[in-house]
């Protein structure tokens, strides 16, 4: 063995025992647990092996040198393949998973190898985080799906409710309008009542006055009739006296025989006239007495009528006052109904708005649902 060979071997041993581990430790320190540690480590090993190959070129003869070039190439190729296996594969694997997630597939199984867990590099940590993330996303998405479904349902319910509410409000408004119209009619009739009552009261007062006047007139006519009856007595007396006078004349004429005949006729005529006036006086008396009785009765009745009419006037006045109060009450009721009406209209408007909003809510729920459908849980 030549001293050069010994020197070479010593160099190899030294570099293999001290230089390579030291370099690897240095790389480890620099890259720590990163996956990139593998690349320089492999490169160091490859460089070391290539340097051995180079040393061999010097110490071996040309025959052996033929083997060195393919050996070196093989070392390089192997090291590149290893590098790819150790670094690019896990990254590609990760990329495909992330692509799936980005497509919305949350069912991707992210299994973390025990080795990877042990290595505790970036890829494994990303894998763990990704797994955690998909798990959380899954939960959130399903929660959101549930929530959006319930939003949808609630929106539908709300919509139906608000539609019903709106309809009811419309009905209420219509009813209030009807009541209002009826009230207005009622108010009109109450007012007419009041007017009529006032008129009736005035008429009753007038009638009372007129009845009093007619009462007085009846009294006067009764008095006049009584006087007529007294005057008839005079006529009766005159008729009676005429009667006696004519009888006496007749007696005298009869005694005068044929001379008294003409006179007798005159006396009889006078007697007839006296009889006629007696009959007439009697008739007048009868009529006067019956008129007096009628007037007396009429007077009594109209005397009774006056307080009745006065009472009627008072009652009518009370009716009139009552009607006025009724009118005021009806007006108040009408105002209240108007307020109710406007409130109902506002209510209808609000419920309509609510209906629109709830419709939007339903749409929102549907939208949310459709968006959530993107995720496959």
């Amino acid at each position, binding site marked *: 063995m030549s001293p050069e060979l010994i020197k070479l071997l010593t160099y190899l041993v030294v570099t293999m025992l001290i230089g390579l581990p030291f370099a690897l430790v240095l790389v480890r320190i620099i890259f720590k647990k990163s996956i990139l540690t593998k690349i320089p480590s492999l490169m160091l090993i490859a460089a070391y092996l290539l340097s051995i190959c180079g040393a061999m070129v010097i110490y071996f003869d040309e025959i052996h040198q033929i083997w060195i070039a393919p050996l070196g190439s093989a070392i390089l190729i192997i090291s590149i393949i290893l590098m790819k296996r150790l670094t690019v594969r896990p990254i590609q694997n990760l990329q495909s998973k992330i692509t799936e997630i980005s497509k919305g597939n949350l069912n991707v199984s992210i299994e973390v190898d025990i080795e990877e867990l042990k290595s505790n590099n970036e890829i494994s940590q990303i894998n763990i985080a990704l797994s955690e993330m998909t798990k959380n996303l899954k939960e959130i998405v399903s929660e959101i799906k549930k929530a959006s479904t319930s939003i949808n349902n609630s929106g539908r319910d709300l919509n139906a409710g608000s539609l019903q509410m709106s309809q009811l409000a419309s009905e209420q408004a219509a009813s209030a309008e009807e009541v209002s119209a009826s009230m207005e009619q009622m108010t009109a009739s109450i007012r007419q009542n009041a007017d009529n009552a006032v008129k009736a009261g005035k008429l009753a007062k007038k009638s009372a006055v007129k009845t009093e006047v007619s009462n007085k007139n009846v009294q006067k006519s009764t008095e006049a009739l009584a006087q007529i009856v007294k005057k008839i007595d005079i006529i*009766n*007396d005159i008729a*009676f*006296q005429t*009667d*006696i006078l004519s*009888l*006496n004349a*007749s*007696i*005298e004429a*009869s*005694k005068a025989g044929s001379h008294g005949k003409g006179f*007798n006729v005159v*006396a*009889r005529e006078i*007697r007839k006239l006296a009889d006629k006036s007696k009959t007439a006086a009697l008739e007048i008396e009868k009529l006067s007495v019956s008129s007096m009785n009628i007037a007396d009765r009429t007077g009594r009745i109209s005397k009774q009528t006056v307080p009745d009419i006065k009472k009627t006037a008072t009652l009518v006045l009370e009716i009139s006052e009552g009607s006025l109060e009724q009118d005021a009450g009806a007006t108040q009721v009408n105002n209240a109904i108007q307020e109710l009406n406007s409130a109902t209209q506002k209510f209808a408007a609000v419920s309509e708005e609510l209906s629109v909003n709830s419709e939007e809510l339903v749409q929102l729920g549907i939208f949310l649902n459709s968006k959530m459908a993107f995720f496959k849980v």
Partner: protein
Amino acid sequence: MIEEDKITNTFLTFRLGEEVFAANIEKASNIIEMTTITKVPRSPDYMKGIINLRGTVLPVIETRMKFGMEAKEYTRTTVIVVFNVDIEGEKSIVGAIVDEPGKVIEIAETDIKPPPTVGAKYKSELIKGMIKTEDQDDFIMLLDIDKVFSMEELLHIKETTKEIKDKEL
């Protein structure tokens, strides 16, 4: 003066109660209205009293009482009929109170019926006859005035009137 037996068929009627009487017109002097009658003391009940008739004392008889009727209050129609009567051939005047004067009627002799002899209300010698006229349903009783105011009754009258005449003188 009036002839005694001159028969005329003219009568004066008058009413007493419900009944109508008639007297010959020759016996009637005249009719006067009821007036104040002066009572005469100690005279019979039917003698109502006396009145002054144009200066003559006229005794007045309550005829209702004389005919046995109830006395009645005087009315507007009550009158005194003055009759000429014969008392023992002496002519005198008597006032008879009647309820109502009637009229002067002429009756045919044939219309005068004899009075009923049985069941008559009044003494038959007082009634000369019964008259039935067309316009009257009931009979008119024709009175004998001289007999109605007969002697014994009118004796009193004569006396009383004489007394009064004496007093006045």
